[in-house]
């Protein structure tokens, strides 16, 4: 009986550890990378998370088409043009930093999801306007 219980416990622990490892692996493998402009240009994949600040003068928004285009400046100071087409975003002018999700085509970053970071004064709420994919 005792050996049976121990075997059961060992199996449970092994299965649980295996499951956790598998989950961790799934998360890391499927998670999308954050990139800067240089890395975005070198990367052919979709779901890139391009992080940077918006050059406010370059913002060009067409709410009727749910389109916004702007120049994004990354931490190294490199600029890339972003064409966003997706959920309407009303607070683009408040945005401090953005994460544009998408891929690069002909040197332009085509994005269908835009996460806006506003200089929020209350940290517990997201000033996000893009609906998750």
């Amino acid at each position, binding site marked *: *009986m005792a050996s049976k*219980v121990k075997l059961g416990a060992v199996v*449970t622990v092994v299965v*649980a550890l295996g*499951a*956790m490892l598998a*989950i*961790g692996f*799934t*998360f*890391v493998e*499927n*998670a*999308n*990378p*954050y*990139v800067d402009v240089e*890395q975005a240009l070198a990367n052919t994949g979709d779901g890139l*998370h391009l*992080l940077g600040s918006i050059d406010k003068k370059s913002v*060009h928004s*067409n*709410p*009727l088409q*749910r389109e916004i285009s702007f120049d994004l400046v990354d931490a190294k100071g490199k600029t890339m043009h972003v064409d966003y087409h997706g*959920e*309407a975003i*009303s*607070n683009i*002018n*408040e945005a*401090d930093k953005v*994460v544009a999700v998408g891929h690069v085509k002909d040197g332009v970053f085509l994005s269908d999801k835009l*996460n*806006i*970071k*506003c*200089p*929020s*004064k*209350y*940290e*517990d*709420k*997201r*000033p*996000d*306007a*893009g*609906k*998750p*994919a």
Partner: protein
Amino acid sequence: MLEAAAHQHWPSAPAWAVDAGILGKTLILLALAFFLTSILGWALPKRTRLMEVAAKWGFVLGGVMLFGAFICLGTLFANDQFEYTYVFSHGDAETAMKYKIAGIWSGQQGSFLLWACTSSIFGIFAARKAGIYRRWFTVAYATFLGMLCGILAYETPFEMARLHGQALLPPQGAGLTASLQNYWVTIHPPTIFMGFGSLTVAFAFGLAAMFTRNVVDWVPLVRPWVILSTAILGLGLCMGGFWAYETLGWGGFWMWDPVENVSFVPWIFSATLLHGLIVQVARKRWYSGNLAMAGLPFVTFCYGTFLTRSGFLGDASVHSFAEMNRVALWILAVFVVLGTLGYYGVYAFLGARLAKMVSGPDDAPARGVNREGLYLSGVLLLSGLSAAVAIGMSVPFFMSLANQKPKAVEEWLYHRVVVWFFVPVLIMMGLAPFVSWRKMGWLQLLNRVLNVIFLTIGLLGCVLIAIKFAPGAIAIDQSQRIPFPLKLWAPLVPWMLVLISVCLFCLVANVWRIVETVRRAPFSVGGFIAHIGVATLMAGLIISRGFEHRERVDLQEGDVASALGYTITFRGMSNQEEQGVFQRDNKALFEMDSKDGGFTARPGLYYEISSDEQLKPIVWPHVEHMPTYDIYFSLNPPVLDVDDPQSIPAGGTSELAKGEIKIKYNGVKREGQPGKVGTKFIANLDIAVTGADGVVRTHHAEPSMEITPNGIAKNQAPVDDQLAVTMEGMNVGQGSAMIQMHFTRAIYPIDLYYKPMTILVWLGAGVTALGGVLAALYRRPAKTAPEREDVAA
């Protein structure tokens, strides 16, 4: 921070406010002193009666001091004392009192003070009933509260901004961001912080049980607190979801954002512990497991708080996290590490051994099924769910520890992982109440739940009929597919039916059990009610998101559009005063008519002047709750301009709206003397517009810029009945002009969502909380247990 130029006219800060700040700081230091007294008083092996009294009262008085500090901060907020940096950053003189109060917990320091206060409430009440565990319970609890006091002393909300050594009172603070000004900001944070505060009880009890060397009798004492904690934290989580739903404009409740996960992980661990305790009470087993689990909710919450405040998730979250003062962050980090190592160190060296000595024999039958087995599976699944989310949340942290490029774990990925836990958990929640603690064959179990299965199938049929004849003329697209693991695609409707049937099974099973037991023990049904609530909530989330239907319309003032079976007419603004659109309570009114009746959608719309003098529209969605569905009316900022201003050289052309509008700029002529009032510059434009009928019509327009005593006026010129044009500027050197095309009537882009059965989400949350509170009341200790350790056998 505070503008140097403007401060000359500011009055001095009132003396009482200066004193209130000093008092606040002092109270926090006093609280720290009281907690230290309490720790010392209880921890010393040889204690006099006096020391014990001092230790007891030190713990209570420490809590009272914290509340005093909270009241000081609240008073400063209520009276707009912006000479304090924290009040300046989060307060607003012109806003309603509820938002002034919400300012208290809008930032780092205030939310830590709130956490300390809510924790101490639970500590004080739980300590009174802690019996033989009171000594070590208080030591552990006071250590934690003392640590919070330490953080609050370093990062105090009572920091005054002095200009040239003077305390001056600025007239206005920065205030809450517009998007946060919603009644939930007053309700949700205190509720969820009550939940966070309650998590400390199980942790301190677990430690106390091990130090007191009695891992048996703590269970009935801690159990009601764990139930209460699960109920309150769950309610807080739901409120956060409602808040997101009502204000964020995409109509979702949950998106697995780090801040949500930080609350979700301890909540699930709390629910896990609660079920483990049930087994210990009923079967006199799982002593070791429960001791291990008791630390998890609190430890994971502290870890999550550290993660979100540390800046590791800075790039990985859409939240803007205020990074903590480094010293305060180090205190928190050291506490997380010490708390975890300390708890599990004591567990490894003491707790596990103590548990082994008292654990009952495993007399479960080898064949068939028993409730303990199902609870074990349930506990493993819940722990797995919680651990999975914790892993997902930590990916950016782990990757930066490993010097890897950070990665983003998105909502869809969480869904794909957690569904494997949710489905079996819901089935367990339906099955477990039917299984007895003793031997039971699988056939016997099947026999017991057969009625439930039949009822579930029957109800599923009703759901099918409802889908077929969905109200509001919304047909569900049968061909829709959703992504599945292994790059497979599942047809939406069957997959939804699987998920719904699982929820239905859990719901029916627990209703069945209530009917069976309510006569025998009417107050024992709290757990079943909570299960019903969870199943209802899950069903609501699944149905409202899965069968969501969206249409987009662009509605021009005075026009009529139709979407989702409604005829939509724009009726104007609710605030008819001049400048009414600058009032925060202004609503845009849309008449929504359908053959089944109608309503007026009142999405919020007002304008602010931004710091760069631009007109900034702020919009709020309108949610119309119907019995079987919600109409979610998301208004986007009105569009007045066709595009950005175009710079056109003389004789040149510019195309807008994908070539449907072509502007030819022929040049400018001047009327009057340059620089004199009354002088006009008139642009000569030919504008070709492609109409809806495909015919191109060319219009001549002459917008002008005129020098007036008040500056330059831009005179708009009509183009046709839809369009008008202005000249925004000109460059004499280059001979170009800035031309702006406008719509004569604003266009309102609207996203309209049909969300079926959203009511279940609200109902489920309420029922879960009700069940939790009932269960907590039912399991409250009947009488105060003996207090002195030597009473214990």
